[in-house]
């Protein structure tokens, strides 16, 4: 196994693990295979990250057909960064899933769950690693289809409806995307993204290309739940099994952001997207609206899981806001927030999963005085919540720092003010948890069974610790993001 094969190996491991898990037909071996595959991918992704940092992008031609004829797997600093996030979160969530999914799903269907989980991981990793636009669509479908089913596995009967809605919208998104790709193929005659970019530079203002841009933008926006195309997300996150929510919240939308970045900066190029078309203004407007409305909606939610889902929409708004700045600081902010928010939200959903396990669901009536019965869970939620707010000493702070810095360097004081002001809405909705868990007397509906099992608590706390760690040690996250930003702006 050599370094050139790593881009493929990262994807192939979970892809292969899925049928294996399916064939095992029993929960435990399926789980073990899935976990091992995720772990392997994580290690491979880390190795890739080291390599691309020192040696530049790694390219692997699938089936030895050289690009642009064959399918190219191409990993640069940005994709390595996302690969590490996705495979890392997958590895952490896998052990959690053992306890969580066992409690939420029927035992005989568990092996199915792990197979789907592997597929979903493989899809997301594939989307990130591939350098081929159509191959990306294929992986997108793999990830999407598996996640529809994963969501539908949720205990609540509303999970099915949510999954169905997600399916319809996800399919629309994928269709839009593939229409865009088709148009581009028509115009350029290639599906390799790097090649496409080179050929597009002359014809970028033609109507088919612009139409392709519109289709791809809307399609990917649906996937990453950009306002106002976010409506599928709250229910999907709320009613999916806890492990699925945590994994998808941490990675799913982030990979879509990656795709958007790829196409805007890597395929279409900054000149057309940001200079000739008002994309940055539109993205700015949508991000601003997303942040405000989603944060405010979160404020009034009666269920912590749903609250966090809306918070995710708002946080995605911050990421797209960073993209809309199209500056070094802005893109750094976007990429680093993609990473930090993935960790933070993953941690929160894992912890909420623990609450849901004990209480059935995470409605605020179940949280009264929770700190007394589940002190570690409560503390974890508060710490990760601080990261969500952007308190210094947490990962979220770093993101906010670069976002505000980007706004100030662009001379947009109102935007800086807006960012900090909306952080305060986050203070308010996290405060609701603090008030319920720490200040309210023990409620009648509050679970009294004690802490979640260690198998759930430990993964959750790994991510909590990570969201603090990356608030203090930014050498990986910020520098990786800064390199990625530099790469995108080349």
């Amino acid at each position: 196994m050599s370094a050139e094969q790593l881009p493929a190996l990262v994807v192939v491991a979970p892809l292969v693990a899925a049928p294996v898990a399916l064939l095992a037909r029993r929960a435990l071996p399926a789980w073990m295979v899935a976990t091992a595959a995720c772990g392997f991918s994580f290690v491979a992704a880390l190795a890739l990250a080291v390599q691309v940092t020192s040696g530049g992008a790694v390219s692997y031609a699938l089936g030895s057909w050289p690009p642009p004829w064959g399918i190219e797997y191409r990993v640069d600093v940005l994709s390595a960064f996302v690969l590490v996030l996705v495979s890392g979160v997958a590895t952490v969530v896998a052990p959690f899933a053992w306890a969580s999914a066992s409690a939420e799903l029927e035992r005989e269907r568990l092996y199915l769950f792990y197979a789907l989980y592997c597929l979903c991981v493989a899809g997301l990793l594939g989307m990130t690693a591939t350098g081929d636009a159509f191959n990306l669509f294929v992986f997108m479908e793999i990830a999407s289809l598996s996640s529809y089913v994963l969501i539908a596995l949720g205990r609540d009967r509303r999970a099915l409806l949510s999954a169905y809605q997600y399916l319809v919208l996800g399919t629309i998104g994928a269709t839009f995307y593939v229409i865009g790709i088709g148009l581009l193929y028509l115009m350029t005659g290639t599906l390799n993204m790097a090649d496409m970019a080179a050929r597009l530079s002359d014809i970028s203002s033609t109507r088919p290309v612009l139409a392709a841009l519109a289709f791809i933008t809307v399609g990917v926006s649906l996937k990453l739940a950009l306002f106002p195309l976010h409506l599928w997300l709250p229910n999907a996150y709320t009613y999916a099994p806890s492990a699925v929510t945590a994994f998808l919240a941490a990675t799913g939308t982030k990979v879509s952001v990656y795709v958007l970045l790829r196409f805007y900066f890597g395929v279409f190029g900054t000149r057309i997207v940001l200079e000739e078309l008002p994309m940055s203004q539109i993205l700015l407007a949508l991000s601003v609206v997303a942040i405000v409305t989603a944060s405010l909606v979160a404020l009034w939610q009666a269920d912590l899981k749903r609250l966090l889902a809306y918070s995710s929409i708002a946080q995605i708004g911050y990421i797209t806001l960073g993209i809309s700045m199209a500056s070094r600081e802005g893109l750094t902010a976007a990429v680093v927030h993609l990473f930090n928010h993935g960790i933070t939200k993953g941690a929160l959903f894992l912890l909420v999963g623990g609450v849901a396990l004990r209480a059935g669901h995470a409605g605020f009536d179940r949280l009264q005085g929770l700190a007394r019965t589940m002190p570690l869970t409560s503390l974890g939620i508060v710490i990760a919540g601080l990261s969500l707010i952007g308190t210094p000493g947490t990962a979220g702070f770093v993101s906010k720092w670069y976002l505000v810095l980007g706004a100030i360097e662009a001379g947009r004081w109102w935007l800086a003010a807006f960012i900090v002001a909306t952080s305060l809405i986050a203070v308010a909705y996290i405060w609701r948890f603090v008030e319920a868990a720490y200040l309210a007397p023990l409620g009648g509906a509050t679970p009294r069974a004690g802490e979640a099992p260690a198998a759930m608590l430990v993964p959750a706390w790994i991510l909590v610790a990570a969201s603090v760690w990356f608030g203090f040690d930014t050498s990986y996250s910020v520098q990786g993001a800064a390199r990625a930003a530099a790469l995108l702006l080349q």
Partner: protein
Amino acid sequence: MTDSQLIAAALAVPATGAGLVALAGRWPDARETLTLAAAAALFAAVLALLPAVLAGARPELIAWDLLPGIAIAFRAEPLGMLFALVASGLWIVNSIYSIGYMRGNKERNQTRFYACFALALAATMGIALAANLLTMFLFYEALTLVTWPLVTHHGDAEARSGGRVYLGILLGTSIGLLLPAVIATWAFAGTLEFTPGGILRDAGLSRGALAALLALYMFGIGKAALMPVHRWLPAAMVAPTPVSALLHAVAVVKAGVFAVVKVIVYVFGVDALAGSGAADWLPAIAGFTIIAASIVALRSDNLKRRLAYSTVSQLSYVVLAAALLTPLSVAAAALHIAAHALGKITLFFAAGAIYTAAGKTQVSQLDGIGRRMPWTMGAFAVGAASLIGIPPAAGFLSKWLLFQGAASAGHWLAIAVLTVSTVLNAAYFLPIVHAAFLREAPGGEPAHGEAPWPIVAALVFTAAATLALPFAVGVPLGLARSVAGIPPAGISP
């Protein structure tokens, strides 16, 4: 130990202390011993740092880069040393007091109390010794968070709503205003390092931009309680009195004005700011706060609330002094941090002693209490005298320097504010002294004596220190002058 290690120790000792206290929670005696030991060790560490700083050295400890180009770094400079000395020294006294108070009032959750207290001191040390704005901001926020459980200690509805205001204003201002100011400073100056002469001097900012940035800082540092962001301070009075005494009269609020002075001296630069005229509005705001808060104090019957508003007013003395932008007034600002700390902690100690011994919280209940609690009320009188500015209690000296600074700046508004506020200070403090010593106690009340001895010992000690400070002013004044860039023997009549 090297000086860098001492800095590390100053941060680590209270943090470790907090952990040990939490572990020892089951054995109250061990827990309290650990608190005292941590306090003593911390004070020793800070004291050991002092000679080098007095000799002109600036020991450093650079931990690691938090963001590319911005390190978590610490440096012992005069102003920070002064603050660290005051906070760590008073922690010892306050711990003794706490033992008496918490046991005397049979408070619950004492382990959490002592652990959070130690954490608060660790955060305070971080603020005091921070070498750059980001490090300071980090610990500033940490201080807000670790003191919140102390504010809401009682856990009842009142504590909850107080805690809400506390956290809301402190987090709101720091995230909403201070953070953008820090980031903007980074964007303009390319560094966040505290540097004598300021780092924004060569940033080429216009007067208006500087003024706006200064405003972000001044109101963003909510702990300095400049009106209208002062409301958290009276709200924090729901906390047990030792918390009010050390944190809301010394550590937290001084962290605020300390940050104000740091920002003015080391970020903007006194001369640069004076030359730009961008701070012209600040003395007016500080002056307004001084007067308005005094009037509110005058009208408050609740003793702790009166003291809280007095603190709001006194904090603005420091802000005013720094805002006058003269060497003497900057020295006054630094010195007033120490002087007010000693005086106000004494007053809060006394308030807590009254509550513990007599269960009284209102000024109107204090008739004749001086005869039952002569030590307590005597100490109260000393603390009050210091804050009014009556010599030789410590407050007079900083007030005098402040006058000199105002005079050298020709700032008539400041002079008028100082004069009027002195009269107002007297008007809200002296009736208490009068009631305690010169009025008859109402009949039919259960007799009581002094509070438990640790309480009385602590408050007598701080009162004595208040009186002694001006006579042993060499170290604090030397540090204060050093901040202002005045040579050690710079002032003589």
